[in-house]
């Protein structure tokens, strides 16, 4: 066969083979095409084998051309093989279905912090951001720290406001987190910026009182703390917890260990302080007043400093504020929990809603 006709034949073979490969619908057909065009008995293989018998001047061009066709065909076959494999896999996978709507497994149960813990942390974090440290104290407390050093000597009328659990004349369950005011001042010279979260106890049990509940006390003592500073700090707190649009107001109040004493209200976040719900009825949360009482506070009474005078608390040189709030009350207001007792029933159906 002269060179020119050989070349032509190679192109015909390549074209035929391309058609056969592209037309192969499955692995057997592709294998058949491979055997036919590249197999040991294929025309191309024979041609390549016979190159040695060609005239020397034709061997190079023919050999190169035949090899090029072989390489091209091998690539085509491999490419087709990949395509067929891919299609076969897709077909197999298409049949391998799961019910994607079944639940995940193994189950990863979601845990929950108690709403009190969650709220306590929220409150702590606000005050940490404002530069306060968190300190804690004993719940079984001396009468001295719970009452006497807070300007409530024995038989002070304010003692009657807090029904107290006693272990002895001198030892009780703290009725508020305020005993840490004096403990903290004993331990640290001014300036002092602390919040005190913890359990407190009052001998009271009905729909709105549980014998144990939680408070956060706050204390800031420095050279120049003012009642305006108290208002500013509590405004930041109220906005962080109840929303950026909230306002607060201070009303006169009474606590034996602060002077002046104030009650602090936050503007109602249900009715936005208007006192009226949408539709014009009286707001059910603030009962129409537009304000909700959230905590008690005041400037630390000079008599309290008298108990820590030797630690540098001279009321002529330092002044400060203190505040105390109920964690459950904050949580109830924020999350709409209707009954204090739910916090201590530990029904997981309640607990799972929070934290």
């Amino acid at each position, binding site marked *: 066969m002269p060179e020119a006709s050989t070349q032509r034949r190679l192109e015909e073979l390549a074209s035929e083979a391309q058609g056969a490969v592209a037309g192969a619908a499955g692995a057997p057909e592709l294998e058949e095409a491979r055997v036919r065009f590249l197999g040991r008995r294929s025309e191309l293989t024979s041609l390549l084998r016979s190159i040695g018998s060609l005239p020397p001047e034709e061997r190079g061009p023919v050999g190169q051309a035949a090899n090029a066709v072989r390489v091209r065909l091998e690539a085509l076959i491999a490419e087709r093989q990949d395509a067929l494999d891919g299609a076969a896999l897709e077909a197999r996978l298409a049949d391998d279905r799961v019910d994607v709507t079944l639940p995940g497994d193994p189950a990863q149960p979601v845990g929950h912090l108690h709403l009190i813990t969650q709220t306590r942390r929220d409150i702590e974090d606000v005050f940490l951001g404002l530069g306060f440290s968190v300190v804690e104290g004993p719940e079984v407390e001396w009468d001295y720290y719970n009452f006497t050093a807070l300007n409530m000597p024995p038989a002070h009328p304010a003692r009657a406001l807090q029904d107290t659990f006693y272990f002895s004349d001198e030892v009780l369950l703290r009725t508020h987190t305020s005993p840490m005011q004096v403990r903290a001042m004993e331990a640290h010279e001014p300036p002092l910026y602390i919040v005190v979260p913890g359990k407190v106890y009052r001998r009271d049990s009905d729909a709105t009182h549980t014998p144990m509940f939680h408070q956060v006390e706050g204390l800031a003592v*420095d050279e120049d703390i003012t009642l305006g500073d108290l208002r500013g700090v509590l405004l930041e707190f109220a906005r962080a917890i109840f929303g950026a649009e909230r306002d607060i107001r201070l009303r006169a109040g009474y606590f034996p260990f602060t002077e002046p004493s104030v009650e602090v209200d936050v503007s109602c976040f249900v009715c936005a302080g208007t006192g009226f719900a949408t539709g014009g009825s009286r707001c059910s949360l603030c009962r129409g007043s537009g304000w909700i009482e959230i905590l008690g506070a005041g400037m630390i009474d000079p008599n309290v400093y008298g108990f820590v005078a030797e630690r540098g608390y001279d009321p002529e040189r330092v002044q400060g504020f203190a505040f105390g709030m109920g964690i459950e009350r904050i949580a109830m207001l924020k999350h709409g929990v209707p009954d204090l007792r739910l916090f201590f029933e530990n029904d997981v159906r309640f607990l799972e809603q929070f934290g």
Partner: protein
Amino acid sequence: MRVPLSWLREYCDPPLTTAEIGDRLAMTGTEPERIEHFGVPSADGFVIGKVLEAEQHPNADRLRVCRVDDGNGSRTIVCGAPNVAAGQTVALALPGAVMPGGQRLGEAKLRGVVSSGMILAEDEVGVGEDHNGIMVLPDELRAGAPLLEYLTIFDDVLDLEVEPNRPDCLSVYGVARELHAVTGAPLAADPTGEDAVASGDDSVADHASVEIADPDVCPRFTARVFDGVHVGPSPLWLKARLAAAGQRSISNVVDITNYVMLLTGQPLHAFDLDEVRGRRIVVRRARDGERMVTLDGVERTFDSSMALVCDAEGPSGVAGIMGGRVSEVSERTTRVLMEAATWVGPNVLQSSARLGLRSEASTRFEKQLHPEQALAAQRLAARLMVELCGARMAPGTIDEYPGRAEPRVVALRHRRIGALLGTEIPRAEVEAILGRLSFATVPTEAGFDVTVPPFRDADVQREADLIEEIARIHGLERLPATLPARRHAVGRLTPAQRVRRRVEDALRDRGLCEVVAYSFTAPDTLARLRLEEGTLAVGNPLSEDASVMRPLLLPGLLGAAARNAARGRPGVALFESAHVYRPGEAAEPPPLAAASVPADEHHHVAALLTRSAPGTWRRPALAADYFAAKGLVEAMLGSLGITFSAEPAQRPFLHPGRSAAVTSGGEELGWIGELHPAVAREWDVGEAAAFELDLETLAELAPAAAGYRDVTTLPPVLQDIAVVVPESVSAAEVDAAVRRGAGDLLSETTLFDVYRGEQVGEGNRSLALRLEFRAPDRTLTDDDVAGLRGQIERELETIGGRLRA
């Protein structure tokens, strides 16, 4: 304190509604708990009438048919009262009027006669309790005039929550003074300003004597004597006032003492002088065990801490709390000794608590009244005794006053007001505010010398107290909102607090639910846990079930698990992080020993599992066992970087073969274990596992900062071995032997299989361990590690083990 608005407005009448007055008082510290309505719902239809005729009803013996002038003409009213008669001036309810119960009056036919209205008895409009007859009113009243002009049948009542520092606001005039200060509306003259006129040429001393034997309980005792007293019902206006203020009318004499107390804040007590034995009053401490029947009919036993008002023979009243039956004013009384005394507040409070007896008087006295208030009350009471009881006042007043108190003067620095409040209040405003509050001011260089009125003496004694007065009247809502300069404060959690959050988060993230249980528990609960240790017992518990402080968290978790199981959630995983309590070392109380704590209190973290992993659609739930609880401890302590060991150890409430003590760094942290089946049965929780650790010790063990270890530069060599040991040898012992044998190159061991079977022989088990070897300075080869095998084998032999080929 219930303040009827009509009474309040008699002394201070700002152009404000009741609600607005309530709001203003709330802002300045006297918050209304509620605003109540007294009397009829509306005063419309209630008028004065004149009975023109009163004839027998033709068809009913007990009824009269009356013709009544209502100012617009006459109408017929059928009346059942026995005392109705022609010529009387009476109170009428006309058809359309709404009665206190809400029913609207219509025309009604009574036994054939149409009655067009009602002639009223006291109780029908809430003025009194008398239903024996209709009210007969003074004749000078005009027919048709609104009844409200004469009698308070319709009023708002502010129920004020008065703070313990404001006994002055436990009085109508005191609230009026407060309202005057807040609003600037004029204040009417003090009702105690005028005294009664005494008559006769005798003297009070001729009738009675007073001795204060124990002046430490009685700073002042004043007494006046009245004779010719006609005890009877009070006039209607007085009954109505008392009713609106929430007091029952008793008799004119008793009502006068209550009226004066409600108006001025100073309690009084009226004795039937003829029942005061020896006509002699002795104020003294009680003798232990002394007894007397108080006005409420209860026999009380006293001790020497309590003060009594006695006569020549014995107790006649409990000082400042309640009078005695022995000298009670009765219908037969004609001579009255009127007491207005001052008592020591804390003493009254304590006696009242010990006797379990509180009264309107004691709630005022316990807040410390000033001796100057006593005589003022005497003046008003005397006028009423003369006016309402037709009494003669004997000249003079017995006034024993051992605790004479001078007016208090407090120096106020103007500079301090701004420094404490954070806003400047001009001197003139300061002076005006103090003036409205009845404080007298004398200017000084720095500010003012301020004289405190007696009725505020208990509360206002220092500069800070004056600044509070100025702040609340100036308006707390007008203060600026500023932030402290905070020159030295940095807010951050302590390492221990961060550990607590990490631990709680670790358990939360593993699917546990946090509970908060009461710190109290029942002795019986601890008995069911077979615990016998000493507990901290509450002296006055609410109940036996909550009478001791819990020494561990487990009972609260068990209670919660049991409650959830009963409510349809049997499989739970719960944890709690809270204090536990034990009796402390006997410590000196502060201030002797500052900073001491009275009990041994620790913060624990504990978990209880009544399931390990929840069941799903393709695998059953995993029961809670020892290893489920231990896995949580591993995760929790691992998150803190704390390694620990578990050693077999028993607790009375745990399965004896499936419980361990957790130790780390030589410290015992707590325990892990399966609940003893008998204990689990007590709570009906099925199989359960738990742990409880001391969080404070954990926090001490947690490394502050982790040190770096190079794990990437040089590759480790891994080798798996299988160790056959008798069952009695623990995994920890095998691990320790392997580590001893392998030496420093062994960096980590992981136990990945436990096998029992024929190949390892009866009574043995095979533990498969993956060993990781590292050298700090070179790449290890298999040959390096192979060389250690012999040493490992030798160490294993010492514990009765061998390597499996």
